[in-house]
């Protein structure tokens, strides 16, 4: 007989709703109250984006992710490159160097072979760019109407250097919080395609592999405490997860966070908060404040980290809560998103 340790938040939803996959509080509840207690083990318990474990002397990092993005081709990237980079980045966020990936395809009857070809070659190119090999895979086909053309699952293995111990729970009060660049590009690029919205200039996804950036930071110091790539749920959800896992408070300065003008006006128009919009090529790092400026310098020397900046610090006050200094110099809570962000009414 399976019992739920803390069934309350789940009982409120007798069925899965879209928000359970949105990367916000509902996703988090599902993992914390269903998957984690059921699968109960020490490697899963920290709920990092990957597990790191030793096998005969080597420290391996292991992760998996599924990609169900619509539309499958969007400005700046596509589902194939996303499936490679997403998994590469989940490995990189433990400090590991990614080496091998698997690829599982769930295809819907009727899906165009031309589109599949484009996706697969895009994956191959992304793998080459990231220096990983796709060494095993699987293909299934579902009947028409039972899928969205194509879903891709990728799993990955990497090697974590000795002496590096990076995890959400390792963030410490006093750490500087570093963001590698401007936010919101991926989410708005997808939304602009999906909703047929037109902006002055095309907003292009930031989809990119981040392991090089991580290597650049580790070359400066091995003392990086926490890394996260703020994908679904945006930087707000990532920071909330870290605050909760490490039992620290987080203070950020809104003015230090770069939001491209087009992203800001798209968000304004749709009533969305850019802090919750997905990114696919950015990372957040927690490092001791003394070395943070050197880490930022190393990031800025890399093309993917040109706009890196210190955006705040970890504190002992208000553990588990993220508080932002607003543009007019007051403060506000930066909440964890509940489900999916919804466009406003007027």
């Amino acid at each position, binding site marked *: 007989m399976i019992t739920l340790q803390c069934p309350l938040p789940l009982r409120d939803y007798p069925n899965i709703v879209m928000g359970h996959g949105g990367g916000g509080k*509902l996703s988090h*509840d599902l993992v914390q109250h269903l998957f984690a207690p059921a699968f109960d083990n020490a490697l899963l318990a920290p709920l990092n984006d990957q597990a790191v474990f030793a096998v005969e002397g080597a420290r391996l990092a292991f992760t998996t992710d599924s990609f169900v993005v619509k539309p499958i081709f969007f400005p700046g990237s596509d589902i194939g490159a996303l499936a490679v980079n997403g998994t590469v980045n989940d490995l990189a966020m433990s400090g590991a160097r990614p080496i091998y990936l698997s690829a599982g395809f769930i295809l819907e009857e009727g899906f165009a072979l031309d589109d599949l070809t484009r996706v697969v070659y895009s994956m191959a190119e992304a793998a080459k760019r990231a220096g990983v090999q796709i060494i095993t895979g699987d293909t299934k086909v579902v009947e028409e109407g039972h899928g969205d053309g194509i879903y891709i699952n990728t799993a990955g293995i990497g090697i974590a250097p000795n002496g590096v111990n990076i995890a959400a729970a390792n963030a410490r009060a006093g750490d500087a919080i570093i963001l590698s660049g401007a936010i919101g590009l991926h989410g708005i690029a997808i939304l602009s395609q999906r909703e047929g919205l037109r902006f002055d200039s095309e907003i292009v996804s930031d989809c990119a592999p981040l392991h090089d950036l991580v290597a650049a930071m580790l070359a400066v110091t091995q003392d990086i405490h926490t890394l996260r790539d703020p994908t679904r749920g945006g930087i707000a959800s990532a920071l909330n997860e870290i605050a909760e896992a490490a039992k620290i408070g987080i203070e950020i300065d809104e003015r230090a966070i770069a939001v491209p003008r087009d992203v800001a006006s798209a968000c304004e128009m749709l009533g969305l908060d850019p802090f919750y919009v997905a990114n696919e090529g950015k990372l957040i790092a927690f490092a001791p404040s003394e070395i943070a400026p050197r880490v930022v310098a190393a990031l800025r020397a890399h093309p993917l980290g040109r706009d890196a900046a210190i955006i705040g610090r970890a504190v002992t006050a208000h553990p588990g809560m993220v508080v932002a200094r*607003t543009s007019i*110099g*007051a403060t506000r809570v930066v909440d964890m998103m509940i489900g999916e962000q919804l*466009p*406003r009414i*007027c």
Partner: protein
Amino acid sequence: MKSLDAYRDEVQVRAVFDQLARVITREWTLMEVCGGQTHSIMRFGIDQLLPKQIDLVHGPGCPVCVTPLELIDKALVIAARPNVIFTSFGDMLRVPGSTTDLFQVKARGGDVRILYSPLDALRIARDNPSKQVVFFGVGFETTAPANGMAVFQAKREALKNFSMLVSHVRVPPAITALMSDPANRVQAFLAAGHVCAVMGYWEYEPLAAQFRVPMIVTGFEPLDIANGILAAVRQLEQGRVEVENAYPRAVTREGNQPAQALIAQVFEVCDRKWRGIGEIPQSGWRLRDEFREYDAEQRFDVGSLHVNESPLCISGLVLQGRKKPNECVAFGKQCTPAKPLGATMVSSEGACAAYYRYARHTFAVVG
């Protein structure tokens, strides 16, 4: 137009509040009518910078919050029907009805879709001739022109499978109701800039005179709100009562007249119930007789529904500025955005949601 950043600049906002501190001599209670302004105030922490003598109370201007429970329950029944595609702006999906919400109807197989424009519902109707497409038309004067246009267009195309569940509300009768209430504390209003962009502010002039209450047309950025508050306090301190436009970059006295004409062509004024507040005479719009065939309430007979509001929820008092969200016993305890008891905790313009999302570090609430 200046870029938005200029209206969010700390130095400029503080300069306005410095002037305010020099002008103010006593306590004043101001109400911002619009939930969008409530969110700006909490989102940017404007309330933290205000002189202590100013009590900002929040008004009934959130369309999601005031949509009556009966209508939400009707929406839930219609959306669950097999042959229906139910469309709405996103916020409405999470609002609790008596037993469930539209998200859960969707999860159980209902075809519920989020739209950005009511005209998209017409496209869906054209593409799905065998289905009935329903649009949940909520909102104040701001959304009425676009919603009216959708119905107008549907009639012109003689679309037989489109209808609208109408819950349109109007600001001026709500102000009359608030000011006529003996419990009223409001001494000046910040009128909603978006509403005035459509309707102008000529409608407010008789109200300001009748109730001797200054009304300042106010925008949504921190600098707009600061300027609106300063203008209101100046009038109060000087004993003036005027309708003043502090949002001239978007609002004129006459407003958008083609939009007003379209509203008048499609809708007529009616009495309407506001969730938590009750019926306010003349405070709504319904479709005119010529368009009645597009009224979802006419097209779908959902029988009689028994509505069931949470006994803890005081959102009606919150919407009338009589209580602050953190004065509700359920706030942040039984009621959070993940488990809302009332619509004001759900809507992106709801006052309870604004307090919880942005300002709970300033109250002793465990979330």
